């Protein structure tokens, strides 16, 4: 009788001992053989949309997080990431929740730097369509065009869109139109700005800038005409007057001198369109 009463207690004690030992073994194994976050299969986007039911937003964020954890782990171990997988992950994430700014942000921060520029832009275009109030996305696309693809004209186009959403970026869009030798476009933007603003101080600044751009435009057109005619570069710019293409070299209202940078095919000025301080 006494034994049978103590039996359960003894059994429990033995089992606790056994549990502790076996748990420590399992724990050690798990710790040593921890699987790093593997790239898992991502179902086709159309299917994901159906199976994530009411929880598209959550699934979208889950995909983003998986991508982030994966990227960070690989980054720490200095292992190259599987970029196509990451692209698929962001593609799915932004299709499920096209407003998910975090996904666009992270995609922009990772993919183009490893060469997937066109793919990133494709994802970002989707964001631009949905988040039509957000200046970040056109700004990112413009940046990609400028930095990775070297296409100033395209960059200016997207900076224009961004500047419409955030007026602080107008300067940027002007610069890029200028860089892309679309000076008349830059002037048109300035004129529109002029008509909208009532502050006299700012208006004066705008007029100065228009004057400088107009001068640069005249010179640039002159240089193009010269090149066409003589198949050569007018050096110095005075050649344009000597050959009768323009009547005088326009003055830079900022106090600098215009010159022609043949390498970049652009009119530049020593003042860099800034007043001396």
């Amino acid at each position, binding site marked *: 009788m006494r034994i049978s009463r103590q039996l359960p207690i003894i059994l429990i004690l033995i089992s606790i001992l056994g549990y502790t030992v076996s748990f420590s073994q399992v724990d050690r194994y798990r710790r040593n053989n921890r699987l790093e976050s593997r790239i898992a299969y991502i179902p086709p986007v159309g299917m994901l949309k159906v199976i994530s*039911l*009411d*929880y*598209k937003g959550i699934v979208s964020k889950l995909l983003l997080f998986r991508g982030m954890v994966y990227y960070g782990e690989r980054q720490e171990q200095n292992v190259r990431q599987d970029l196509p997988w990451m692209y698929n992950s962001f593609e799915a994430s932004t299709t499920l*929740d096209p407003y998910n*700014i975090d996904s666009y942000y992270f995609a922009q921060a990772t993919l183009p730097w490893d060469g997937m520029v066109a793919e990133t832009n494709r994802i970002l275009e989707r964001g631009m369509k949905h988040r039509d109030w957000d200046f970040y996305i056109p700004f990112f696309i413009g940046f990609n065009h400028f930095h990775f693809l070297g296409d100033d004209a395209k960059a200016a186009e997207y900076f224009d869109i961004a500047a419409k959403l955030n007026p602080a970026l107008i300067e940027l869009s002007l610069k890029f139109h200028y860089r892309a030798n679309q000076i008349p476009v830059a002037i048109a933007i300035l004129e529109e700005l002029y008509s909208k603003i009532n502050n006299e101080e700012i208006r004066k600044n705008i007029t100065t800038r228009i004057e400088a751009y107009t001068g640069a435009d005249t010179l640039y057109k002159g240089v193009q005409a010269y090149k066409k005619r003589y198949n050569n570069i007018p050096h110095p710019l005075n050649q344009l007057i000597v050959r009768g293409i323009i009547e005088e070299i326009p003055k830079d209202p900022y106090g600098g001198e215009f010159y022609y940078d043949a390498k970049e095919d652009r009119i530049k000025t020593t003042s860099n369109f800034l007043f001396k301080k």
Partner: protein
Amino acid sequence: MACDFSLSSASFISLILTLFIGQNLITKDIDRRSIYTVISLPIKRGEYIIGKFLGLLTLILFSVTILSALGGLSVCIAGVLSPQEINQTISWGNYFLASLFIFLKLAIIAAILFLFSSLATSAFLPLSLAIAFYMIAESVEEVRIFIESASPNIKPNLAIQYLAKLAYYIFPNFEAFDLKPAAIYSLPIDTGHLVYLAAYSLFYMVIAMAIAAIIFERREFL
């Protein structure tokens, strides 16, 4: 992010609650034969079933309200603890509307659950049918879009196309009830559309409950 999480979990938990409590309401009465005492009372059977339905609706309403209110609170706390630079504005009006439409969606599911309960003999059948109903209703729009926009070489055959179209008209389009993005990213909402959407859900509920009542009236209990 936090907002999406709180609304999604409010919707998910309330869905589970609706399904598992709703499945028992009528079938248990039948199973335990307590239905005999109820139908011998001087009330109509339709009244009985509608009363139970309204009770379930109250439960769902409380569940959604409490969950989304607490969720909103946690969103506020998260916003204070880790402020975001981008996308920090949450439209609380839209948040309220989103939880309201979660409630309406669950109310439709409850009505369907009652419809199936009124003709089922076990608790399991209405539950599984209601889950299937929920899944179909969530994806009808996606399937319709797929079929309409699929290129000819992967288009399914005509019978399936018509079946999908039929499903689109019979099942409610739950995707329309998903206002979560509007709350999270403070998108503008078309109020007129919402009025129609609410009316749509009400009519759907009334139809389902009316059919349930008719079936229940004619049912024989052995």
